[in-house]
Structures are given as structure tokens and as C-alpha cells.
């Protein structure tokens, strides 16, 4: 009887341990406040084509597809791939990244829809100003 119980108890402990890790990871992600940046896609062009973000911090990137066609935000260096539906906003999170240049492009129109994320090692100005500057 005890032999039969042993594996199930071990399984319970493993399940609990894994659940705790997952819960910790999920709650950590959910509670964290992220600096927000916006990129607009219009006529298969990204505005702004370049944006500067802080190093070693995760940021929220809102991509507003104002075109009538579907696009896919793609970046090998950022490890991101997101389908952008027409006239809709999409959200992705990028980072934490070390200082450098990270290219992104629209997979369906790679010749025109191109952009660059510049990760700066120096402290950036207030996020709201930054975002406004980038959008305009």
C-alpha cells in the first residue's frame, strides 16, 4: 500500500513545485509595469522607422496597423513575430535587451516596411515625451 502511495506523493510534489514556478512567473509578468512605445504602420511604412528604448528593461510595444491589409511584424534579432490585422492595434513586449541595434520588418512587405530598435545604454528622458516624439 505504501509502495503504491509513494509515486503519487512524489508526483504531487513535482506538480506543486512546477505550479509554484509557473505561478511565480505568471504573477511576476502580470504585476510588472512596462514602459510603452507606439509604432504606426501606414502605407507599408513604419513610423517612426527608428526608436530608442532603454537597455536591460522589458518594454510594451503597441503597433497600430492603419493599412487596409494584413502585415506581419517580424524580427530575427528581437525574436518576435506578430500578425498585424488591418485597422487594429497589436501589442508585443520586447527585451530586456543589451545596447545595440535590432532590425525589424514587415514580413509581407519587407522592402518598404522596415525599422530599427536602438537600445541605448544611457538613461532615457521621461517615457511620455519619448513616446510622443516617436509617434510624431
Amino acid at each position, binding site marked *: 500500500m505504501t509502495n503504491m502511495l509513494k509515486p503519487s506523493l512524489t508526483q504531487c510534489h513535482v506538480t506543486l513545485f512546477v505550479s509554484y514556478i509557473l505561478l511565480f*512567473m*505568471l504573477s*511576476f*509578468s502580470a504585476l*510588472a509595469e*512596462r514602459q510603452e512605445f507606439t509604432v504606426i504602420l501606414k502605407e507599408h511604412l513604419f513610423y517612426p522607422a527608428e526608436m530608442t528604448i532603454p537597455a*536591460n528593461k*522589458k518594454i*510594451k510595444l503597441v503597433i497600430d496597423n492603419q493599412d*487596409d*491589409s*494584413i*502585415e*506581419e511584424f517580424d524580427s*530575427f*534579432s528581437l*525574436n*518576435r*513575430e*506578430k*500578425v498585424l*490585422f*488591418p485597422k*487594429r*492595434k*497589436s*501589442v*508585443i*513586449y520586447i527585451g*530586456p*535587451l*543589451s545596447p545595440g541595434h535590432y532590425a525589424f520588418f514587415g*514580413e*509581407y512587405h*519587407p522592402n518598404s516596411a522596415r525599422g530599427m530598435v536602438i537600445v541605448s545604454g544611457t538613461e532615457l528622458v521621461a517615457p511620455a515625451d519619448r513616446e510622443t516624439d516617436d509617434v510624431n
Partner: protein
Amino acid sequence: MLINTVLVFLQNILPIFVVLSLWFAQRDVSHQMSKQEKQNTSDLPLIYLLKTLAMGLIIVLFLSYFMPEVSQLFSGTGLEIVYSILFSLIYCSIVISFLHTRVTGHISEQGKTLPKQQRLTQQKSVVSLVILLLVLCVHGSNFSLYIMSLTIQNPAMDILYSGIVVGVIIGTGICLSIAILLYFVLVTLVKKTRCQLVCYFLLLFGVGQLIQGLQLLEQVDIISSNVALWSTNYLIAEDSELGYFLTILFGYEATPSVIELLVYLCALTVPILSAKLLVYKQSSMTSFMKGTS
């Protein structure tokens, strides 16, 4: 447009061709068996494959149609959640198939009873079809989205049309060449080696799919990602031809995070160890039965 169509086609359709190639290679093992062995295996007929492909195409159209609505669910993370579930299902089905192959191989080596072997082979065939269906749904829907993006509300469609058609033809040619090459390389191998190679290749492919699902969850911040551990971009760049193939087939990541590395290693080692444990249990049970009789 032509080059882009070829690239998108390869990225999304090559996995389907590779899975098909592995399916045929695995199936061919039973065709080379003796009459007695053939009776033992009871593989599913080819018509089931055609039915699965037809069903997959219907699901692809259905998925593509509802994708915009799904993407808006759960505060804009719907698509990532649905796709990560589908990627996990692909991995789980591949693990089941892997364990089945290992156990079936062990049973046939020991020359065990017919009904058990038949049942296991039939289950394995059904799981293989499920894998194919899931891969077709996930990757096919991405490609259908690309075609939709070009065809719907596009005034320059007449100019793009020839590029898309030629791109699809070239893409199909490349995918077919790779699939046929892979099939013939596998077919030339000895039955036992081939079986092992196919199931390990499939397992690596499954781990790659799981990593893709994980990256989708990292992308929408459901799973926390950390700084990349290292960069192998100087060896094999992800945007190079080889990088493309390795990413599509085995989930190659030039800049992996800690969680990606851990998941990759666990997803690879746990099924292998489980299979070894199952085989060990089988053989100890057999020797115990022999000892008692």
C-alpha cells in the same frame, strides 16, 4: 514579391512536407516486412491520409477566417495563446508517437503477442495523423493569411498575381525536393536505424514547435523572458539560409533565454528517459513472466 512568397512558403509549408516525408518513411518500414509481420502491424490505409489533409485544409480556412477576432481576445493576446496551445499539442502528440515507437520496437524485438502489437501500431498511426493535422493547421493557416493579405483589398493584385503563383510553384518545388531527398535518405537505411532516426528527428521537430509556442507566450509577456544567454549569430545567423532551415525544423535559436534553454533540454530529455524507463519496465516484466512460467 516572388522571393518573399518563396520565403514565406518555405517557412510555413516546409514543416508540413517534412512531417509527410517522415510519415511515408515510417510507413515504408511496414511495407518491407514479411507477410507475417505485415499482419501484425495493421497500418492505416492511405485514404486516411487524404481525409486528414482534406480536414486540415477546412480547418485552415476556418482558422484564417476567424483569426482577426481571435487576435482580439484576452486583451489582444488571443492568437498567441491559441497558437501556443496548438504548438504544445503538436509536441505532446509527437512525444506520444515517440513513446509508442520505442515501445512497439521493443515488443517486436521480443516477438510478443499479436493483438498488443497491432493495437499499438494502430494507435501510433492515428497519432501520426493527428500530428500531421495539427502541423497543417498551424503552419497552413499562417500561409493562408499571407495569401489573404495579398489578395483581399489589394488594387495591385494583377501585378502581384504572377509573382505569387511563380513563388508558390518554386516553393512547392523546393519543399518537394527536400521531402523526397529526406524520404530516400531514410529509406536507404536499415529498418531499425530508420525507425530510430525518424522518431528522434520527429522529437527534435516537436521540441522546435514547443519553443515556438514558448516564444509566443514570451512575446505577450505571459511568460517572463530574460536577457539572451549567448549569441551564435556569428556561427549560424537566424536570417541565413541554414538558419532558416534549422529554425523551421529544430527550433534553432541564436540568442536563447534561460527559460528557452531549460524548456528545450527538458522537452528533449524527458521523453527519451521516459522511453528508456518504459522499455526497461517491459523487459523486466517479460523476464519476470519467463521466470514464473
